[in-house]
């Protein structure tokens, strides 16, 4: 199974990058999930609300349509600890908006442009993610 995982990862990654390329070359916009969603939440993206909503709808619906074609386990294995989910959700929501990007915007779109800010942000959230696992899994044992 592990041998196949990296192939599916690469295939899926190419699809994600192709999506970003369509958004950039078609609409002239950076495909960043937190920015597209966050702009609707805080009102800063009101003038481009239609393209944001269509993007998010397609992002939500497409995996649902693919599920019947899949025979493998698709469980997200998400924790059922609500305190962890709320704390993590708040941190992700606040952090990505303050930093103006997440894994897609800074990670995929920023690194591929050799953007200093994108690279620095990606290093910061990867290191913090690693620290998070050390603290919350190995030291505190809450996840």
């Amino acid at each position, binding site marked *: 199974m592990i041998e196949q995982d990296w192939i599916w*990862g690469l295939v899926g990654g190419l699809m994600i990058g192709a999506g970003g390329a369509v958004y950039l070359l*078609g609409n*002239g916009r950076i495909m960043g999930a937190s920015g597209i969603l966050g702009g609707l939440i805080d009102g800063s993206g009101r003038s481009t609300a239609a393209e944001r909503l269509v993007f998010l709808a397609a992002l*939500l619906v497409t995996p649902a349509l693919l599920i019947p074609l899949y025979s493998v386990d698709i469980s997200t294995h998400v*924790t059922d600890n609500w305190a962890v989910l709320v704390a*993590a959700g708040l941190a992700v929501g606040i*952090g990505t908006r303050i930093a103006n990007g997440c894994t897609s915007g800074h990670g995929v779109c920023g690194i*591929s*442009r050799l953007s200093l800010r994108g690279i620095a942000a990606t290093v910061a959230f990867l290191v913090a993610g690693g620290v998070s696992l050390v603290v919350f899994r190995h030291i505190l044992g809450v996840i």
Partner: protein
Amino acid sequence: MRLIFSALAGALFGAGLFVSGMTDTRKVQGWLDIFGNWDPTLAFVMGGAILPMALAWWVTTRRSASLIGVPFPPRAEPVLDRRLIGGSVLFGLGWGLAGLCPGPAIASLSYGGTGGLVFLAAMLAGMAVSPVMARLLDSSRAAA
């Protein structure tokens, strides 16, 4: 055309997150957990995604505007500030804690159960209050 490009981009993004396994929080936490049972899948996803995007950025240098006529996003000033790093650190802590970032949180909503909904609700609340938090971060710098 604008909405067709949006739908196509969202569909490719969602399909890519789904087939790559990036909506599985175990794989994401497995990548971040270098002291556990390390899972390298995320590196292949990132690498795979960066290839077509790098090509797309190269194309933007050969064209004056996007297909619908909107100018390409300008390059940000290469300045590393407190918002960028502080925000990214906060994001990374939450990302590791739940194994979800904004894209997969939306993509997995139809099959992620109650936990996925709770995470999304908290993330939306965080996004709603983020302008206030950003100002707090700025004023703490002014006071320092």
